[in-house]
């Protein structure tokens, strides 16, 4: 075993360890949410995941993005077969260990090359759409700062990785043609074959350096990229699968019943029903959390709402469909999801630093999301409908509204009158219950 193999193994081990550590951290953060049962209807859940995540079933509403994204998606999945070979070669010092597959290997390598080209071109087009054409949903202020850099970093990395892969193959092809030692004849190179003439002037030693250099760049790049995922919106490539599995399968406009309120209302209306016993306090990361109606902070949301936040890849389809956003209101469903993730990360970092959760005087509501955003929502569910990975921003908006109204009595004046009317006369307007049948008398 050469020094190269040892270095490779160490790198691989470090990458796997760091990734597992970060996945554990994200899992812990998602676990800070309230319970919610999504264990029912498993056949339907598998089918939803197969259709929406695996089959990209909701991408088609924007055909250009759908086709380009499909290339990148298929490229990512298929080229990972090649990464498997790269890993084995790296560990054992072999070269193109799968080449015994013969004709099949040629077909595989050929198709990887075409896919790599498709990924490369798609990512370039994506960069153009974001930075030159400046599609509205990519230049909105939700994405100012890190999120925009994040998106561009992902695309540039993928371009570089695919470029390295093709350059590596081109050098390999030339070395194979020259009969260089170690470089067994294997594979067909439809795309890198076109690049090869550019490298033809390089000596054998130089080509080996190019081939090895690109090999290392490619695999280190992939390991680095893997570890970048938990810090990035790009985590969606993994989380899209569990997130669609745990989709809301109920009608979108159905709001969840608040059990606690149900107990209190039943006891209020029927004196024979005792008021519900107070819930046992929730202990989270070493701290006791106050019982609240609705949600003030991320710990008041459900684990599924937090998983939604980590799954969001900030594509902005929700915001571009949102009637409030389209008419210039402050609300952006994408920002609701980004805020939820940012706040959850902040809480997670604080727990990591202090070993337990301590109130930091901030909250999702107020420090991140304003009342104005919440009151702009029409609960039309266009955002949830269009989301390619079945995220539900409306649920979060409604939980925050519930906190505002039930815990802080903060409600827009006109809605306060509406609520008074419903309380007093069973209608949102000031109309007498006894007049309910008047319509039958009028002509």
């Amino acid at each position, binding site marked *: 075993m050469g020094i190269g193999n040892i270095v490779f193994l160490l790198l691989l081990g470090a990458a796997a360890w760091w990734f597992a550590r970060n996945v554990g951290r994200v899992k812990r953060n998602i676990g800070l949410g309230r319970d919610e049962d999504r264990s029912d209807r498993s056949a339907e859940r598998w089918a939803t995941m197969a259709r929406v995540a695996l089959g990209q079933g909701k991408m088609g509403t924007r055909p250009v993005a759908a086709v380009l994204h499909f290339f990148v998606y298929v490229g990512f999945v298929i080229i990972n077969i090649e990464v498997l070979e790269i890993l084995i070669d790296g560990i054992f010092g072999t070269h193109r260990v799968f080449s015994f597959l013969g004709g099949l290997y040629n077909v595989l390598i050929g198709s990887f090359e075409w896919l790599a080209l498709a990924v490369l071109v798609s990512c370039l087009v994506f960069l153009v759409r974001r930075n030159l054409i400046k599609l509205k949903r990519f230049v909105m202020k939700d994405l100012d700062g890190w999120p925009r850099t994040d998106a561009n970093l992902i695309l540039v990395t993928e371009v570089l990785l695919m470029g390295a892969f093709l350059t590596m193959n081109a050098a390999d092809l030339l070395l194979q043609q020259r009969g260089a030692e170690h470089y067994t004849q294997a594979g067909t190179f439809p795309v890198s074959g076109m690049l090869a003439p550019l490298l033809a002037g390089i000596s054998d030693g130089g080509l080996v350096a190019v081939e090895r250099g690109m090999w290392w760049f490619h695999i280190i790049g992939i390991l680095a990229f893997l570890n970048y995922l938990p810090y990035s919106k790009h985590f969606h490539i993994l989380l899209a699968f569990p997130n669609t599995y745990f989709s809301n399968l109920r009608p979108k406009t159905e709001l969840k019943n608040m059990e606690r309120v149900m107990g209190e209302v039943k006891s209020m209306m029927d004196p024979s029903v005792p008021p519900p016993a107070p819930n046992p306090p929730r202990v989270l990361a070493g701290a006791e959390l106050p019982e609240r109606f609705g949600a003030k902070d991320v710990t008041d949301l459900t684990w599924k709402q937090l998983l939604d936040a980590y799954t969001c890849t900030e594509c902005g389809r929700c915001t571009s469909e949102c*009637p409030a956003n389209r008419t*210039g209101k402050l609300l952006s469903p994408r920002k609701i999801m980004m805020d939820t993730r940012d706040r959850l990360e902040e809480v997670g970092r604080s727990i990591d630093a202090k070993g337990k959760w301590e109130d930091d005087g901030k909250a999702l509501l107020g420090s991140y999301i304003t009342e104005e955003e919440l009151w*702009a929502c029409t609960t039309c*569910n266009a955002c949830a409908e269009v989301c390619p990975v079945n995220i539900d921003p409306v649920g979060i908006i409604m939980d925050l509204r519930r*906190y505002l109204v*039930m815990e802080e009595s903060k409600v*827009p004046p006109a*809605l306060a009158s509406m609520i008074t009317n419903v309380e007093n006369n069973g209608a*949102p307007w000031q109309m007498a219950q006894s007049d*309910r049948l008047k319509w039958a008398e009028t002509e």
Partner: protein
Amino acid sequence: MADFMASGETPEVLFWVGCAGSFDDRARKITKAFVRILNAAKVKFAVLGTEESCTGDPARRAGNEFLFQMQAQTNIAVLNGYEVKRIVTACPHCFNTLKNEYPALGGSYEVMHHTQFINALLKEGRIKVEGGDFKGKRITFHDPCYLGRGNGEYEAPREVLLKLDAALVEMKNSRKNGLCCGAGGAQMFKEAEPGNKEVNIERTEDALATAPNVIAAGCPFCNTMLTDGVKHFNKEGEIVVKDVAELIAEAGEL
């Protein structure tokens, strides 16, 4: 409903009129049109009348879960007391609440939106309509969010409208990606948040782009929003906003 109970009869369906259908001048016309259809089809139906109360939908969307649940418990007690099995309503918000949100509180009924009910009546041959005044007219249908995206019903209102021998023209945003009228989520009862446009104006523009003679609605609140939108563009002389029930009642001269 009390009269049915007293005479020992069971109505085929309970018509949940809703607050808009009971009190709003414009929506009352929808109520009456639907009643004309029910009568023409000889449907034995009941209403709760003064025993009906708000479903609680706007209170719940405004964040007041207590008030919602009190309204729900009150209504469920009345509905269960009368042993109601089937409900039809012309309001998608009442429809959603009765159908999806009452079961968890002890009120389970078969609930239909009036466009589904009318569609069934037409299919069963209990009413017949021909195009009448609407033959050849351009009609565009605005999907109510709580009927369409909320409950997956896009076809019933369209199937009904097709009976009018009219040209059914679709807006740029329809069915799953239909644009909201701006009234949902208790917005109907408050001022819009600051922005550069009203949602109903944006939606009315979508509708006007289809050059319609009629904008068809299936919700009293959408109806108000779109009617206001059409007035905003001074088009009320050329374009009418009507509920699906009104169109059928008028075409069938019911």
